[in-house]
C-alpha cells in the first residue's frame, strides 16, 4: 500500500474515467475507505475463489485476468489497463472472485471497499443506479469479448 491522503485518493478517483462525473457523495463514499496500492509484475490483485470485497480502479500498468485450464495451464483472457476497472463479483452472490488478476508489469490501483459502495447505494439508491450505468457497459464489453473468443475457439468465425 502507498501512503496517500483521503483527499489525494478522492482526487485521483474523480479524475478516473470510470468515476468521472459521478455524484460527489458517491465519490466521497468510495474514497472514504479506499487505498492506493502498488503491485509489482507477478503480484496477484485477486485470486479465484476468495472473497470478493473490493473494486479495483486501475490507474496505470497492466493486469492480466487469468483462468486456469484442466491441466492447470494458465490462460490470460483479457488484460486491463489505465482507465479501466476490474472486480465486480462483490455485486452478485456468492461474492467470490471467478478468476485471477495478476499484474503483468508495475501497476497502481485504488481499491474501493465494496462495503462502502453498498452503504452508499442503500442510503441513496440513485447513486447505485448511476454506478450501474457505468458498470453495465464494462460487463457488456466483457461478455461481447467472450462471445467472440468462444466463436473463435470453436472455429466458427
Amino acid at each position, binding site marked *: 500500500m502507498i501512503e496517500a491522503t483521503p483527499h489525494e485518493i478522492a482526487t485521483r478517483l474523480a479524475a478516473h474515467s470510470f468515476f468521472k462525473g459521478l455524484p460527489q457523495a458517491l465519490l466521497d463514499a468510495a474514497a472514504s475507505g479506499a487505498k492506493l496500492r502498488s503491485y509489482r509484475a507477478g503480484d496477484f490483485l485477486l485470486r479465484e475463489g476468495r472473497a470478493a470485497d473490493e473494486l479495483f480502479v486501475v490507474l496505470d500498468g497492466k493486469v492480466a*485476468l487469468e483462468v486456469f485450464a484442466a491441466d492447470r495451464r*494458465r490462460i*490470460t*483472457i483479457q488484460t486491463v*489497463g489505465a*482507465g479501466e476497472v476490474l472486480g465486480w463479483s462483490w455485486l452478485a452472490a456468492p461474492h467470490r472472485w471467478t478468476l485471477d488478476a495478476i499484474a503483468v508489469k508495475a501497476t497502481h490501483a485504488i481499491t474501493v471497499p465494496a462495503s462502502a459502495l453498498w452503504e452508499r447505494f442503500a442510503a441513496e439508491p440513485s447513486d447505485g443506479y448511476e454506478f450501474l450505468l457505468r458498470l453495465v457497459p464494462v460487463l457488456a464489453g466483457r461478455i*461481447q*469479448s467472450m462471445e467472440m*473468443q468462444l466463436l473463435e475457439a470453436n472455429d466458427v*468465425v
Partner: protein
Amino acid sequence: MSSRAAAATTHVAHATSTATSLYAPSPYVVKSRTQETSDIATLVLAPAGGPPLRPFAPGQFNMLYAWGIGEAAISISGPLGAGGELVHTVQSLGATSRALFSAMPGTVVGVRGPYGSGWPAEAAVGKDILLAAGGLGLPPLRPLLYQLLSERDRYGRIEVVYGARTPKHLVFYDELQSWRARNDLRFQVTVDAAGRDWYGDVGVVTTRIPDTRFEPANTVAFVCGPEVMMRFTVQALLQRGIPPDAIYVSMERNMKCAVGLCGHCQFGPDFVCRDGPVFSYRRIGPYFTVREV
C-alpha cells in the same frame, strides 16, 4: 432498361469479349515463401512469362490457381515488386489453399486478376485513419498501410489495431515490431488468449478500440477480419462517433468467377468479387446482420 440492367448487360458483353484474358491465369513462380504460422504462409510470386497483370490497388485480390487442384481468391498482401512480383498470404483451409500454402520456391502457380474494389485511400486524405484487423485480416490491409506510410504527410493520425487468436497466430511478426517502433504510427497488437510468456495486451480487437486516438468526425476506418469481428468492431466505431460512410469493411465470400457472373459470392444486391470486397458500411450495413444473405 434500368441503368443497373444496362450496366449488367455491358459487363457481361465485356466479359464475353475478353473471356480468354478473364479466365486464363498467367504463370507465376514462387520466388520465396515465409511460413507465418503453422497454417499461414506468405508467398512472393514472380512473373514466369505470361501476360502481365494490370496494376492493383490495395485491398484487391487475385485468383490463385494451384494447377490441377483449383482456384482460390487470395488478397494481395504486399506492395508490387520491382519485377512485377506479387505478395500473397495464404491460409491452409481446403484442398486449393493447402496446395498454395505448401507451394515451395520454384513451384509454378496460375494468377489472374486483380479483381474487386480497393481501399479508398483518397477518401482518407487529410483525415485520421484507423485500421482494424483481425486474424488473416491484416494481409489485405498491409498494402494500404504501406501506401499510407509512403505518403505519410497526407494523413492525420494513423492508428492500427491488430488482433489474433493467440501469439502463435500473429502474422508478419518481425514487421509488427518495426511498425510498433515507429513514432508516426500507433500500432496496437492484442491476442484473444495467451499464456504467461506473453506480455502484451489480451482481449479481442474491440477491447482496444476505446484506447485508440482519433477525431471521430474526421476519421476514416478500414476494417478487415472474420465477419463476427467486423460486426462488433463496426459497432464499437459507430459508438465512438465515426460516421457509417467513413467505415469501410472487406467482405469475404466464396468467390469463383471473380467477375460478377457466377453468383457464388452474392451478398444482398451486390457481388462481393465485383462490387467489393471493400464496401462502405453505409452501403452494406443493412445486410450485415441479415442471416439469410
